[in-house]
């Protein structure tokens, strides 16, 4: 095996490819976490977004419609968690677990009901998201891949600083964090915690839906049953590792994108797909173990 072949310029673009859906979903999860709702339903929200995006793009013949519908579908789906956890006092973990199962059932059922296929829906009628190549910049060696992304790719990367500003430099972000950390204190300041929490969950659904659109209309142009394949869970871990900080989320997502891309490459060196597929999950687990000091510190702080 030749290491130079493993790490070449194309690696950057494959890392970005793997990273963007996870990053979009994780940024969504971050917002919900900041508002005090533990969102482990990202997996299902990505899947719903992917299906809705493919269906809308197929029927409208327009990728913009596909992306918008994916976003709306993700937000609509996340209402289950938002309404249930915020207004009905339901347990977010229970709701999200059920949502993830619902998403698989729902999309597989509609796949047969609407498109009359099982497993995979592939059709030339599905219009994929184009790549917007920025001239000159895209020709820079190595970093050029950063300027040859899908619109959602740029959006995801720009959202990192944008959400940082919103969270830490605007009244909106202050209130959102206040709601998550001290809901009662926020309420006495005249902030309605429930509205902020619902809004954060809806936003997380919309972002995860966009992640699904990137997955099914950008990375590939097709819908496959259960195509989110654990990315939502990786996004959940990214949120926890980053302590819901935008830059940390980017870092964590970068790591997983890297693991994914390397695994995919190792396949061309003859490693069986089954083993490389396990890579991102094993690495995620290893990172959890290595970063466990953070967990312990917070636990001790919580007990003290």
């Amino acid at each position, binding site marked *: 095996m030749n290491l130079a072949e493993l790490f070449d310029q194309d690696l950057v673009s494959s890392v970005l490819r793997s990273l963007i859906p996870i990053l979009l979903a994780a940024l969504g999860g971050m917002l919900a976490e900041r508002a005090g709702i533990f969102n482990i339903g990202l997996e299902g929200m990505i899947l719903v977004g992917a299906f809705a995006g493919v269906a809308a793009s197929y029927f409208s013949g327009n990728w913009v419609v596909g992306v918008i519908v994916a976003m709306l579908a993700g937000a609509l789906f996340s209402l*289950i968690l938002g309404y*249930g956890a915020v207004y009905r006092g*339901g347990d977010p973990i229970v709701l999200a*677990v059920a949502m993830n199962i619902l998403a698989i059932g729902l999309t597989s059922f509609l796949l047969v*009901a609407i498109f009359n296929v099982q497993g995979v829906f592939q059709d030339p009628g599905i219009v994929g998201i184009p790549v917007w190549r920025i001239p000159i910049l895209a020709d820079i060696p190595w970093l050029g891949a950063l300027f040859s992304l899908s619109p959602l790719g740029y959006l995801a990367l720009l959202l990192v600083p944008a959400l940082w500003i919103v969270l830490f430099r605007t009244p909106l972000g202050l209130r959102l964090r206040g709601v998550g950390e001290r809901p009662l204190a926020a309420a006495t300041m005249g902030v309605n915690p429930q509205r902020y929490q619902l809004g954060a969950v809806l936003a997380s659904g919309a972002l995860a839906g966009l992640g699904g659109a990137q997955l099914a209309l950008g990375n590939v142009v097709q819908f496959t049953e259960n195509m989110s394949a654990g990315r939502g869970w990786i996004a959940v*871990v990214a949120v926890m590792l980053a302590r819901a900080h935008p830059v940390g989320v980017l870092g964590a997502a970068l790591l997983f994108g890297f693991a994914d891309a390397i695994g995919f490459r190792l396949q061309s060196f003859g490693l069986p797909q089954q*083993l490389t597929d*396990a890579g991102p999950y094993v690495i995620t687990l290893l990172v959890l173990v290595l970063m466990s000091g953070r*967990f*312990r510190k917070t636990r001790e702080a919580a007990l003290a």
Partner: protein
Amino acid sequence: MNALRRTGRWLAGPIPISVVLALVIGAVFMLVAGVHPLDGYAAMLNGSFGSGAGLANTLQRAVPIIGIGIAIAIAFRAGVLNLGTEGQAGLGALVGGIVAVYTPGPSILVIPLAIVAAVAAGAVWGLIAALLQNGLGVPILLSTLLLNYPARYFSSWLIRFKLDDPGSDLVATRQIEPANQLAMLVPRDSAFAETLRNTLGPTNVVTAVLTGVNWSLVIAIVVVAGAIFMNRRTRFGFESGLTGQNAEFARYGGVKPGPLVLKTMALSGGLAGLFGLMTVVGAPNTRLIEGSFVQSNYAWTALLVTLLALYRPLGVAIAGLFFAAIMVGSDAMGRELGLSPQIAAVIQAFVIILLAFRVALPRGRRRRAGTEAPVDEAEEIPPLPAPTAPRPEAKEAER
């Protein structure tokens, strides 16, 4: 009279209302797919309970759901969020299945050996997560979940590249020796089965169930009874229930949280491994098939069942039968009406979502001002402990 009123109150409570509403939502999805809901539900009912074979199928399908459901219930009751039963049961099926396929010798030795191997494999996979939480503080919710994927892909790889039997079209091992498979309650070629067929008829319900369901049903019943006994009569059951309700109080009372998590995960993972094995030594399969356990979705169905049953063993058994019937019925409906059998997952998930929404008919008597309405605590999913997430505020607290 009192019992009647209590039944009436239960019927107006969250569980039955959630079930009914979920079935209504299922009907809407059938309409979307262009099927009349009455036809759909008729096909579903007919497929799951309508015939002896259907009933036998439902019972057989309920076994792994109930078994894995008990495994999850034991963990959740102790406040240990084990979402990794798919991996634990899958590895149990793999390791136990390998023992069952390849070990020579009399079945009286091979079957117990396979069971021990399956339980050990599941328990070890569960213990990894327990050790990670105790030693390093990695939340069990995440570690168990992430451990599903290596287990899934490793099984897949092993069966495809190391164990595949070229004699079959499927990617699968060779069959387990018939002597080493779990026998039907009444073996089909036995004299008693012949008597049953002659006296009751070959399609009679009793004949179909006794000759169509294997001994794993008995194992499941024993496990349910064992779990009831454990919860009510043993120290471990008491301590785990207490910890699930109020971890701080249990700690104050002298329960050591670390060892409790270890014991719970070993037991939970071991049970999951055992029932993973059941799916490859008799029904639905008699060999290891790539991806079969994951696709069957038993582990996740079992999780929903456990939530519906509010972690109570008898409830798990009843809810498990119900969800198995929905699955078997949906398969039948799918075949007859050209629908996706995934309607089962939609209905099942909505039952849990609606239950978490606490939907219920309004009580007959109005709440008197100042007094709380009598709430059936048992009618709600007990609160789950939040995983030890690194909360954003910790940073501020350090200052």
